């Protein structure tokens, strides 16, 4: 979605906060989500994603701050709001003792689908999600992927303008996950529905989301398009260098002596330098070539949402009173400061 063409926001949060006793699950969340966007909420377990979805649907009330969703105040107008939202919960939350068809029929009535349309709408969704053949079977006999598809069908029964999908592909095989991805894109691109996607899956978020918000301990750590976040956080390239197998040691020695603030790593004969600037590539190649190292491949990897995510969480860990220096989320022995700043430079 082109950010310049955004319409009025369908979700507006201002300092939205939710506490459970001493625990602050959502901490001063302020953001706008626009019509037709696929918006990603990224964060670890306990980051506040699911609580935010509950607040935005009026099944939890905020401790502080306000929210407006599709023009409704979720805290005071929940029933009216929920007529226009569909939610895929983290667990499918299906009545497993009932058949798929009965599950959908009951929820069609709960979502006030016109009586005359219930049967056709249920059949249509069973067909779309390829469940027609087993529509009469109890859900308890379904695979995880089938349950997830059925739960997604249930969320779409009443053609909601706004869809909340909490970990929609967790536990799905790649084929089923791709099918869900296609459905989400179709909902946004062809049906212009707004989708709020909560996920841990960074590849999924990068692939599907127009914008993402990264949450950590209930706080908004970053907000923007994946490209904007990479730019904002100054994430740099990851450089893979493949040299002749018998010269890996020489190359590592050269790079180690030339780099001031980062240690190159190597695995299976491939040297990886994290945090490179584009301008450094010719200098690294020159350094190795001058020393007579046979360089077979130099592959710069563009920074991904994953890099942004880990950098942000490293920063968060660093900023917490009990944050442990060096125990970064990425598994690399980096400090938070290193995660955010340039990691290496080549001495002249």
């Amino acid at each position: 979605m082109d950010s310049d063409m955004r319409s009025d926001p369908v979700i507006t949060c201002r300092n939205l906060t939710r506490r459970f006793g001493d625990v602050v699950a959502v901490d001063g969340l302020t953001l706008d989500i626009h019509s037709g966007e696929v918006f990603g909420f990224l964060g670890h377990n306990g980051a506040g994603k699911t609580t935010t979805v509950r607040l935005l649907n009026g099944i939890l009330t905020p401790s502080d701050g306000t929210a407006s969703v599709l023009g409704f105040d979720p805290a005071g107008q929940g029933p009216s709001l929920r007529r226009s939202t569909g939610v895929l919960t983290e667990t499918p939350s299906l009545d497993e003792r009932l058949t798929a068809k009965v599950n959908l029929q009951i929820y069609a009535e709960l979502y006030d689908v016109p009586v005359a349309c219930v049967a056709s709408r249920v059949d249509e969704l069973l067909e779309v999600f390829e469940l027609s053949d087993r529509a009469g079977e109890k859900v308890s006999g379904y695979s995880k992927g089938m349950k997830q598809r059925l739960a997604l069908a249930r969320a779409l029964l009443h053609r909601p303008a706004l869809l909340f999908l909490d970990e929609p592909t967790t536990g799905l095989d790649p084929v089923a996950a791709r099918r869900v991805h296609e459905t989400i894109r179709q909902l946004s691109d062809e049906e212009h529905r707004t989708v709020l996607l909560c996920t841990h899956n960074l590849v999924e978020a990068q692939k599907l989301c127009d914008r993402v918000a990264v949450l950590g301990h209930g706080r908004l750590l970053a907000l923007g398009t994946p490209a904007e976040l990479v730019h904002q956080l100054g994430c740099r390239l990851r450089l893979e260098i493949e040299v002749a197998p018998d010269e890996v040691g020489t190359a590592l020695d050269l790079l180690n002596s030339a780099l001031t603030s980062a240690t190159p790593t190597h695995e299976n004969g491939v040297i990886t330098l994290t945090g490179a600037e584009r301008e450094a590539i010719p200098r690294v190649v020159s350094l190795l070539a001058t020393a007579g190292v046979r360089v077979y491949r130099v592959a710069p990897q563009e920074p991904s949402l994953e890099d942004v995510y880990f950098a942000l969480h490293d920063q968060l860990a660093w900023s917490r009173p009990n944050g442990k220096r060096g125990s970064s989320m990425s598994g690399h022995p980096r400090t938070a400061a290193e995660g955010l700043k340039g990691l290496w430079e080549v001495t002249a």
Partner: protein
Amino acid sequence: MNWRSIRAIVRKDLRVVFQNKGVSIPLIVLPVLVLGVMPGLAALVPRFQDLPGAGLTEIGDFVQRLPSGLRAELAGYNEAQTLIVVLLVYLLAPMYLVLPLMVASVIAADSFAGEKERKTMEALLYTPTTDGELLLAKMLSAWLPALGIAWGGFILYGIVVNAAAWSTMGRIFFPNTMWVILALWVAPAIAGMGLGTTVLVSARAETFQEAYQVGAIVVLPIVLMVVGQATGVMYLSTWLVGLVGLVLWAVDVVLLWVGGRKFRRTELATRM
């Protein structure tokens, strides 16, 4: 009130309950025992009067120990008839109340705590139903079947006892006024008490079993009635039954008011 949503939830809950054999089998077996087997056997007791050690000679002593009000009501019956009336009209009456109580408690436990246990509550909370509609639907899911069993059972019990005791009584002796009040006034109230208690317990309980077992404490008043009558301390007079019903309705109002305050989306979502 969106009655379409309420009907949908009631239908869903009942379908789910009756798919669970652990719930549905007791719901079938207990009424058969209480309404069919027990009164049938009790009605046959006078026929064994000729068996050694089973005569009715002690009945007179037993009647003398009964409360005076009940003795007055039994005046005019011979010893065999007295035994029938005491057993079928008075002693088994509290057992009849177990039915609506148990049905309401079992279904409510499955509907409230069971839904939590199966993790199906969250999807319901995201629907446009209001908290009031959701609570009402869930209460009706448990209360209406309990009422059905109570009133259907009352009719069945009447047919069974009149038929089984016909040779001894020679006329239709059931129901009396006390039983009509018991069925129409007390049974719905005691179902409400089972329901209200289970709603309260379910707010904390994590599983169906936990909710049902803790909620079973409501059977105590019935046990007291059985013991009280068997020991001759009390008997279920028309006035007492009316009063018991009044107290139960009052308890229901309190239980449901408190339970209703706990059964709110925001409360439920906090515990998910």
